[in-house]
């Protein structure tokens, strides 16, 4: 199980579970904290779920009738009777029951064979390309960081869970904020005033010193808004089956991240983009158990989150996107695992999503150097998310990309 944390690109805060042991706040407190300028009802909200390490797409959306699938990876293939059938050819990994149930409600779009031109097999290069959204010009900023810069300044606009900011939310001059699981605690009293003096810009600051001052400034503004909200209990998921004495969600770091997100969305946080993540998908060895455990975590956490949000006025506004930096090699290796590959499926989940399959399933008989061919460029998805979810023109953010998928 230690392999699960193998590729934890962004080390998540080990802070204690939120929401416990805090007294309930009064309505006035809530109103003041999150409703000073709440997100208008009906504003779409994007949740980005990054799976770090390269999730094996073929064992996520399984081509369970293709003989080449079984002959290519005899040790780690899923038998047809095990998969959760989506249609006559494809089925979900047996661990993804929660997402299967959302699929049955037509709330899941699965875009197949997603990648970018000239796929790179390096985790770091490939993730940088996905997060920058610029496979050709290789920008240093993230596509959602550039979106942040296209909006009015608001430190609450885009928030990543964890203490390290992912490149996804980094812009050229402005970036999203980050929030550890336990929330932010700021100095109080007169000392707070002195700290805030340190957060001002200085004319002599270079780029990094200016960024250091900004981080302190953001700390105060974000903390003042979210701290009271985090003391609230998370929205209740009352329609989930309770099995074996426990909630079907289980307790994973991803579930904790989504709990914080759920509270803040329910409280009306003026945040339009959230970023959460799970690592450990680099399954070079002993893949079957490790990947199933991880996919089970993702599926359970997302279906729990969906149930939590259904009871709030924001449930219909949420769109979740799940992606990884690449899929894996079609042929298994000798250690019951797979090496780095190329294309993989992307999931879009939510009431606004038109459920179903999009993009062609890459052929197992027409491999490129042992890898799946890319059938959908991820920029088709990004442009749809920017235009249809974030209501922002996408072409400039995506450096001139014009084509757009129809998933909403």
């Amino acid at each position, binding site marked *: 199980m230690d392999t699960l944390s193998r590729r934890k690109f962004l*080390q998540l805060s080990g802070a204690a579970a939120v929401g416990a042991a805090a007294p309930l706040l009064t309505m006035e407190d809530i109103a003041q904290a999150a409703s000073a300028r709440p997100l208008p009802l009906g504003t779409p909200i994007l949740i980005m779920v990054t799976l770090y390490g390269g999730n094996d797409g073929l064992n996520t959306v399984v081509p369970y009738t293709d003989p080449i699938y079984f002959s290519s990876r005899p040790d780690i293939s899923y038998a047809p009777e095990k998969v959760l059938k989506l249609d006559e050819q494809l089925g979900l990994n047996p661990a993804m029951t929660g997402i299967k149930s959302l699929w049955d409600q037509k709330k899941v779009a699965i875009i197949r064979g997603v990648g970018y031109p000239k796929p790179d097999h390096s985790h770091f290069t490939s993730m940088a390309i996905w997060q920058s959204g610029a496979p050709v010009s290789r920008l240093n900023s993230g596509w959602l960081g550039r979106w942040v810069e296209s909006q009015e300044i608001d430190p609450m606009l885009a928030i990543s869970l964890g203490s390290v900011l992912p490149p996804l939310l980094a812009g050229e001059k402005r970036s999203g904020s980050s929030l550890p699981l336990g929330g932010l605690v700021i100095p109080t009293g007169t000392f707070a005033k002195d700290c805030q003096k340190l957060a001002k810009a200085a*004319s002599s600051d270079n780029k990094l010193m200016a960024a250091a001052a900004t*981080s302190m400034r953001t*700390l105060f503004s974000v903390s003042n808004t979210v701290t009271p909200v985090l003391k609230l209990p998370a929205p209740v998921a009352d329609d989930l089956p309770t099995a074996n004495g426990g909630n079907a969600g289980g307790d994973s770091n991803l579930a904790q991240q989504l709990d914080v997100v759920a509270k803040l969305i329910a409280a009306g946080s003026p945040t339009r983009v959230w970023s959460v993540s799970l690592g450990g998908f680099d399954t070079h060895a002993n893949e079957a158990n490790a990947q199933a455990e991880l996919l089970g975590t993702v599926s359970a956490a997302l279906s729990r989150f969906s149930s939590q949000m259904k009871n709030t006025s924001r449930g219909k506004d949420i769109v979740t996107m799940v992606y990884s930096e690449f899929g894996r090699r079609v042929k298994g290796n000798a250690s019951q695992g797979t090496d780095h590959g190329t294309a993989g499926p992307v999931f879009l989940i939510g009431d606004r999503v038109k459920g179903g399959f999009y993009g062609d399933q890459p052929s197992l008989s027409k491999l490129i150097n042992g890898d799946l061919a890319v059938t959908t460029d991820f920029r088709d998805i990004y442009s749809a998310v920017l235009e249809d979810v974030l209501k922002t023109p996408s072409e400039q953010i995506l450096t001139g990309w014009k084509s757009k998928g129809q998933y909403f």
Partner: protein
Amino acid sequence: METDRLEIARLYHRFGFGPRPGEFKDALTNGLAATKNELLSVPAIDLGAAQIAEPNITNLGPRPDQKTSALIEFNIALRQQVKDLPLWWLDRMALSDHALTERMTWFWHGHWATAIGKLNFAYPMYLQNQTLRKYALGNFGEMATAMLNDGALQFWLDGGDNTVKAPNENLARELMELFVLGVNRYTETDVRELARALTGYQIERSSGKVTFNTKRFDPNVKTILGSTTTFNGTSATAHLVSQPDNAKFISERLWFRFISSLVELPSNNSLEKSFETRDITKLLAALTDSQILSNPSYSIVKAPVEWFVGVARYLKLTPSALKTPAQLLAYLDKLAQVPFSPPNVGGWPTDESWLSSASAQYRIQFAAWLIKQADLSALTAVAPNKRIAWLQDELGVLPFSNRTRLALDGVKSTPAQLLQLAICSPEYVVSA
């Protein structure tokens, strides 16, 4: 004088872990040349490092079976070792007289980034740390050979699973991409061929012992970067190190971590040539040349461990003696940087990644916690209106901006708060 101050500050904060009390002022008096010379000459005996006892980290042997009392004892011992290991190293960083060796060991740890989590044994990580220290300022080719035979690295990258029957590419890819050549300086075929050359290794997890099993080795010819022969792990690694791209890559990596991650290494640089013989000290001499160090545009953010060790050196704190050491590791964990636990094989992130609102919060709390345990009598003895200028020289930073000066001025009569703000100021968090 002002460029001397910039260069000396950079030598202290980037090639060491920051000055101890009085050191920076002395260095300004002694001058840049003498400071650089002292930095690059490793003393025969480091009295500061010598006072730290080796940790009690031993080969615990294989994990006992479930449900035996031996397992409980084993777990207790393992937990203790996993905690002792980073504390021991942090002590070395904070107490060594000559900080460059530890600083370079730290760099190489991020370069050959291996995390203890997957291995779940402290002993092989301890052995790897000794290897990295042994070659920290030595020959890169020898280091690469030693790392090929390092149990922790081999286990981390599934080396034992890479056999003639079907290769596992994990180690081969990272050896080319992250350790020796750099991304895109090889083809996918080279990765697959190198994986075949790296077959045959077996690792004993608890001891980190690496053995070679000819039955699992692929003896056939391989073509790697244009050369075709019956490569094995040793000859293939030497072949990679002999490539001109190796000099380029290691120059780029040192540049990235010590000079700037925002500005690329200029193409007409003197670094690659200095590394012709793969002598790391020669490369460092080129890297600390005034042409580079005096350029004001190369600023860099201190990573959390670097920031902490800098504060500990200045406050004369021994990390393992803090109350409590577990709290120290918890703070570093919140800042997302604990020695021996890099987030992935690419090592830790740089610069703006460390400047989130969340890390600003933890840094303020961490600073208060450290200052509470320190002796501030030297600062207290300075008259309040002279403290800001005095701290500037003690901490070895460039002149504080008006912004910071104003903030510090508000707390100058309270030494603990003054110091807390000073070490959380952009001027200290960033090495300008």
